[in-house]
């Protein structure tokens, strides 16, 4: 019985070996090297053609890009230098910086107005909406929040009622 199993096993092994040997000993059709070489030559020419067209594509714009970038650089340099000149030479009229100033001053330094300051009307410069008595004037058309009582402003014609 064991011998039968052994023989059967051996038979299986032989069949497997034969199949594997046959599978591993196939030979390609004649001329495989030539066909591979031809395919490689095709690939090589395709790659070269692709790189040549890429070089052609970049050849013309390269000059244009160079010119444009140098122009932009020139404009940036000129604009920067003009801007810098404007900053170090103030052009506001009427300003006279003290001679020998380095451009830096303390907070307590004298402030010079840019232009002559006119005298305020009626000797006060705080608010033009104040009456002579110093009370704020609110017109009757002004929007006021609901529920807020606002004292009526005395009319200038009736005189100042608060004064005795």
């Amino acid at each position, binding site marked *: 019985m064991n011998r039968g199993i052994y023989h059967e096993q*051996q038979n299986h092994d032989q069949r497997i070996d034969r199949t594997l040997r046959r*599978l591993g000993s196939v030979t390609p059709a004649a001329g495989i090297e030539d066909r*591979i070489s031809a395919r490689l030559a095709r690939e090589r020419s395709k790659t070269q053609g692709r790189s040549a067209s890429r070089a052609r594509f970049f050849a013309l714009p390269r000059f244009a890009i160079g010119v444009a970038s140098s122009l932009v650089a020139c404009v940036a340099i000129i604009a920067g230098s003009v801007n810098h000149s404007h900053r170090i030479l103030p052009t506001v009229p009427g300003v006279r910086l003290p001679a020998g100033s380095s451009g830096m001053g303390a907070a307590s330094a004298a402030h010079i107005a840019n232009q002559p300051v006119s005298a305020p009307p009626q000797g006060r410069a705080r608010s033009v909406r104040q009456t002579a008595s110093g009370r704020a004037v609110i017109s009757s058309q002004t929007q006021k929040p609901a529920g807020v009582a606002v004292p009526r402003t005395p009319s200038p014609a009736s005189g100042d009622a608060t004064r005795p």
Partner: protein
Amino acid sequence: MSSFPGQLTGWMAPALITEKALASEETFAPAKTLDSTETITALVAHYSATLYRVAYSVMRNAAEAEDAVQEAFVRVLKHRERLGEIHDLRVWLIRITWNVVLDKKRRSKTRPENDDIADFVRVLPAADRRADDSLISSQEHGRILKLIDRLPRKEREALLLSAVEELSTVQIATVLGTTESSIRSRIFRARRELSALLEKEGVSR
């Protein structure tokens, strides 16, 4: 237990093949003076048949196997600057071919099976057939290949690469990214399972 000697023979078979293959192996080292184009031409002349066998073991179709070999050499052409750094060109080429073949096989999963046994018989030169090989019919060959396809992936890959006589177990291990002992045990398991499948098929027939 009585089947052990047979299994042992099967297990040792790849090692025996390896020694034979290594003894007859011609080592190829491209001359330093060659440029990359000449090196690739020399590689094509030297390894195209081996790579074809590797590709054929998976594709089982002459045209697709040749296409895979061409594809592998195109990849070599693209990475030709690395040629000088490669220690073992043959294993490197086989690995590239193996990856190409697996990619192709994965892509063709949606397509119907294209195992072409008649094609296989045509490409096999009559002079290479041995007496015992002539006994095996194309049908039986196809049947065993179909059973091989039913094996788990790792075992199947190790078994198929072991069929390529030029490859040692060390080289198979390098191609599959594992150890030599792992390859040996995979081949052993593959043969045992294949034997069991043949047994089952024999009973059912």
